[in-house]
């Protein structure tokens, strides 16, 4: 851009140089990324989530012990965390079991490491499903209006009145003991339940965005130059509604993680897996449930998973807030 022929008049050259110095052209996306990077808490959150993904993938390499193996003779019952001395040598902490062991001699730290897997899976898979269902329906309802729009609005009214947790509980009781509910220790049922409840919120959001965008001049212009409905939606409306959709997605994940933890804590979520090679042997919700029963004997069984849940939801909030500031400058609650 700044390459100027040597014969060009000096004034022109100056103008062009100063223009290019003012601002190199940046895409909307790189603008958002710059804005996001400036938010320290969001970057910390993102860093922590990336770290957790590595932990989840390489869990077998990181965990010092098998998370399901129970060997009370070696591990001891309620062995304290490594730095805590106990008069009873079988309960005194050792670095073989950094966070101690639970009532049947399972290594708390290894369980924590493996628990990362369920939290991430339970957060991300429903989010993808929810966006895949909610976005098209919201686009269609907002763009076409009519009965679909009406049906969607009435449905979301009802879903809003039905407290999500109650619906999760009832779904788990109703379907938890069926063959479908047992798939992958109940993970599949959990995905389905979370998706059923949350897609309406996304659809309503996308509908609102679509309604606002379809009146904009650039959409009008595209329509005037002969773009069909499909092209209008995919090339003009969807890209411009993407910001709020991404932000909504970022906030679905911690909600799903919490829902899993709460349901499992109440004893109707995931089933414990006793298979030594299970890829998803335990979840933080299960650990909290175990920990609450025995925190007087070994408090780290409760502290470790609770802090883990707190940190992951906090990170998602930071990332979500950062994304909102970067992508959706209108809303700043």
């Amino acid at each position: 851009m700044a390459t100027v022929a040597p014969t060009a008049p000096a004034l022109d050259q100056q103008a062009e140089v100063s223009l290019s110095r003012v601002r190199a052209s940046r895409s909307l996306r790189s603008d958002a990324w710059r804005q996001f990077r400036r938010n320290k808490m969001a970057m910390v959150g993102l860093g922590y989530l990336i770290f957790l993904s590595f932990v989840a993938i390489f869990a077998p390499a990181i965990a010092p012990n098998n998370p399901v193996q129970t060997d009370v003779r070696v591990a001891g019952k309620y062995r304290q965390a490594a730095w805590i001395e106990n008069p009873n040598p079988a309960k005194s902490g050792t670095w073989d079991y950094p966070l101690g062991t639970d009532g049947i001699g399972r290594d708390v730290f290894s369980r924590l490491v493996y628990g990362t897997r369920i939290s991430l899976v339970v957060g991300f898979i429903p989010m993808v499903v929810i966006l895949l269902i909610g976005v098209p329906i919201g686009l269609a309802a907002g763009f076409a209006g009519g009965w679909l729009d009406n049906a969607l609005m009435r449905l979301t009214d009802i879903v809003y009145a039905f407290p999500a947790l109650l619906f999760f509980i009832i779904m788990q009781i109703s379907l938890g003991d069926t063959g479908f509910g047992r798939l992958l220790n109940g993970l599949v049922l959990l995905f389905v339940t979370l998706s059923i409840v949350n897609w309406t919120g996304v659809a309503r959001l996308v509908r609102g965005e679509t309604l606002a965008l379809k009146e904009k001049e650039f959409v009008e212009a595209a329509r005037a130059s002969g773009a069909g409905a499909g092209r209008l939606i995919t090339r003009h409306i969807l890209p411009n509604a993407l910001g709020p959709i991404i932000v909504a997605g970022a906030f679905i994940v911690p909600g799903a993680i919490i829902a899993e933890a709460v349901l499992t804590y109440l004893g109707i979520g995931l089933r414990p897996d006793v298979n030594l090679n299970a890829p998803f042997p335990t979840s933080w919700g299960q650990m909290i449930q175990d920990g609450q029963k025995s925190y007087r004997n070994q408090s780290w069984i409760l502290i470790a998973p609770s802090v883990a849940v707190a940190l992951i939801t906090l990170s998602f909030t930071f990332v979500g807030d950062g994304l909102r500031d970067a992508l959706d400058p209108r809303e700043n609650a």
Partner: protein
Amino acid sequence: MFGYVLRRTLWIVPVVVTVAAVTFFLMYRAPGGPWSQEKPLPASTVRTLNAKFGLDKPLWINPEAVQAKRDDGVNNPLTLGRAYLDSQFFNYMIGVFRFDLGPSYASKGAETVQSVIIQKFPVSAKIGLVGIIFAIVVGLPLGVVSALRQNTWIDYASLFTSTIGVSVPTFVSGLLLLLFLSQNFGVSPVRRPEAWEGLGRAYLLPGIVLGLGTMSYIARLTRASMLEVKRQDYLRTARAKGVAPQGVVRSHMLRNALIPIITILGPAAADLVTGSIIIETIFSAPGLGREFVDSISKRDYSMIMGTAIFYSVLIAIANVTVDLSYGFIDPRIRVRR
């Protein structure tokens, strides 16, 4: 305006019907009947119990009952119509609207669901009351102070606390708080039933934990809307005409900043209701939330159904009340309708 209020209020009815129907069918197909327990009851007992509670009737419609009535020579269409709908589903739905939620199956019908709700709900309501008072009394000033002292350490501290409060689920913060208090101060959940009569100290801890999320949300929202109001022209006008700084904050900033806060009271009600299920379990409070969790482990289907419906009616009423109150508080919204 009256038409709008009426429409909005009547909308509760289809919402409740749908919630009740969904709950009914999900619970109907839940495995194991209401009488299944570790030692199976004899078939004759099950039959008697089923007959007693109308569980032997058809699920949807009951043409046989109509035929029986016809054979008896009844021709009144109302009676016949009622007989046609003398089914498990419609009997339950009719019951719901008369606040007759049926017998609690776990008690073999000795107690009705509504009597348990009436007995247990006051404890939950009191915890919720403490929670909402805490949320407003702490959250509002926190938001105001951090907006007035934007980008000072007070602002950062309150923002940090409220971000934690918004994102960390109450059952985690509640458990950690209980753990901390029990290890350092010997506090344990209050189990004596008499401590939960009246409005005693027992309510303090669960109430505060329950209100933590709402408090943080209110603080964040108050801060954001105060900051937005701060830039408005009418504020400059007020200062220019010589209104005292406190007066500006009180009657110009706060009054306008409060409007968005009302919008979250609907979701907050839902939060408090579902939160109470967890909090009461953690703190062993003898309220409806814990009763609900108990009925889950006892597989007391009618209790689960009734409580779920009761909760969603509460939330629907809260939502409608909040919706209607906007119009009264913010004239701009009223005009737009």
